[in-house]
């Protein structure tokens, strides 16, 4: 019995770790959605590209991992700025649908840039903390997992604090609720959008660095993260900032439990099917309200 409980606890801890990866990526997607009204399909690809930067710096210049990660974060800010500065800023008059197509184009650009700059061979990135486990009596959790979980939670805590309690956060929220009016009221919406793209890039990069040690760094590194983060947004609803984060954690937990208890081969597919079925009953997500389109 206690063994069974131990397994569940262990699974839950591991799910929290994958959940934080998804949640960070989902947060990036929702910030872009709320400020630029774009469903950011390229969040994973941007994260993949910047994780390549981290890995490349780590392997070529032999910098410590934290310093490499900082380089990646800097690259993420730079790519975020560039994307907004070169593309998104000039698409004010473009329909939301066309903006989505732009992010799909971005996926291809980064899918091509990564092998162009860093080669086609799969690279590998180590964990922040190589070894060590915390024992919780019936379950154990690695130091690295604890670091990832807490890093995710702390980052999200800071972001939500900034969003809700500071003037900067207010600017973001007003931009999110109505961009033209916010601009008329003197909110620097351009700077808000610019910052949002940089922030989304950083969140993508961090989620990439967290997921990289579990696999190899290739162009498909973030495919699963991107998909799960998007479903997190769908599950939580696109109307709030915290809904997608919640959705992402639920997907992290659900996925691992289905893979362990139901089927190691079909678990993930069952998870996706369940989300599709969920959409029938709550099309606007867990915390969503119906969006009424005015003519």
């Amino acid at each position, binding site marked *: 019995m206690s063994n069974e409980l131990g397994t569940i606890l262990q699974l839950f801890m591991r799910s929290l770790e994958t959940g934080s990866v998804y949640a960070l990526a989902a947060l990036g997607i929702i910030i872009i959605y709320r400020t630029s009204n774009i*469903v950011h*399909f390229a969040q994973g690809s941007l994260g993949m590209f910047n994780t390549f930067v981290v890995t490349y710096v780590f392997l070529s210049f032999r910098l410590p991992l934290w310093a490499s990660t900082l380089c990646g974060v800097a690259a993420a800010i730079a790519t975020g700025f560039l994307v907004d500065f070169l*593309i998104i800023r*000039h*698409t004010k008059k*473009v329909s*939301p*649908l*066309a*903006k*989505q*197509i*732009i992010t*799909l*184009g*971005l*996926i*291809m*650009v*980064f*899918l*091509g*840039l*990564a*092998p*162009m700059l860093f*080669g*086609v061979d799969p690279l590998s990135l180590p964990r922040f903390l190589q070894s060590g486990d915390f024992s919780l009596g019936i379950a154990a959790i690695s130091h690295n997992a604890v670091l990832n979980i807490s890093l995710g939670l702390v980052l999200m805590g800071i972001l939500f604090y900034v969003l809700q309690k500071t003037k900067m956060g207010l600017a973001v929220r007003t931009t999110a609720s109505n961009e033209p009016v916010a601009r008329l009221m003197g909110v620097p919406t351009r700077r808000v959008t610019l910052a949002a793209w940089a922030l989304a890039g950083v969140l993508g990069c961090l989620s990439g660095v967290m997921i990289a040690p579990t696999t190899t760094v290739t162009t*498909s590194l973030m*495919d699963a993260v991107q*998909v799960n983060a*998007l*479903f997190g947004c*769908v599950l939580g609803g696109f109307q709030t900032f915290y809904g997608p984060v919640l959705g992402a954690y639920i997907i992290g937990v659900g996925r691992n439990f289905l893979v362990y208890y139901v089927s190691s*081969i*079909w678990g*993930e*597919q069952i998870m*996706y*099917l369940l*989300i*599709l*079925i969920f*959409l*029938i009953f709550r*099309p*606007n997500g867990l915390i969503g309200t119906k*969006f009424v*389109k005015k*003519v």
Partner: protein
Amino acid sequence: MNERNDSSLANAKPALWKNPYLGFILFGLLISTLPLFAGWGLMKNSTLNYIGSVLVYTVAALGLNLLLGYAGLISLGTAGFMGLGSYIAAYVTKDMGMSFWAAAAAAVLIPTLIGLLIGLVSLRIEGIYLAIATLCVSEILLKSFEQADSITGGMQGKSVSYPVIFGHTFNRSTTYLLLVVVLTLVMILTHNFVNGHKGRALHAMRGSEVAAQAMGVNLLQYRLIAFSLATAYSALSGVLYVFFVKFSYPSVWNLTLSLLVLAAVVIGGLRSIYGTVVGAFVVWAVPDLILKNIPVLGRINGLPYIFNGILIILVVMFAPQGISGLWQAKFARKKKERENGKEAE
């Protein structure tokens, strides 16, 4: 190429040219002569293979163009449904030993039914959910292709032989001709659909969903029609792929392929049949046949993706109607210049 769609131009031509089918059939005849060039040694056989696969992808792109151009919806499941079609076709002919026709029918019908179900679920909600739901489905399908060894051959892939139709065993050039015939038929079908009463309802929807609704157009029904057609076209394209390439691997049917199909539609031009064909050539043939042969530049990894990605972004930003839009604008300008010239006289 300019006598379709644009009625003002068609009016200037003799009556025979008004028949749009003629254009499609001429186009079909033109590309069906390409194997001859390969036979004479004027063209590499590999080039013919590339062009054949472009034709295959064009079928899927025409379907997505209906969905994106008229219903304004994105599907990211194109590759998944293509893969499903290809595996069903392979399974029915190879493992069940049934005819080409049975295989084609099953391979188009089953994905279309699945598409209908997904459409029913996701189309009731605002547009963007279809993209996410189809992304979800294509992930499920891709994983299933890898796992369901007994049907799909797993990671090793599934092979088939060239089709046998009416007791006639096809080879590469005749299969190429089959592709051309199917593509021509699909183009005519699409043309008829778009200009029929269902197409008019879709046109109305595109103008204003609210106004179309007020005129009695059932939005859900027409979105479903557009999505089912897009799914059926992708599945058909998958069938053609598997019989032309004779192989189906899970790794082919990934998100990148769906994105490339989307790129073909956007670059070629929404709601344009010839534009889609041109778009498909730009997306698949230009990187493989032209960019690769440029000295230093051609050896850069990932160049085709960068090329297509940047092209999509540029087209969306600066030429929303794609290549066909640019083409039409050019002719409209020339016509105007001519008219101005006449007035001056």
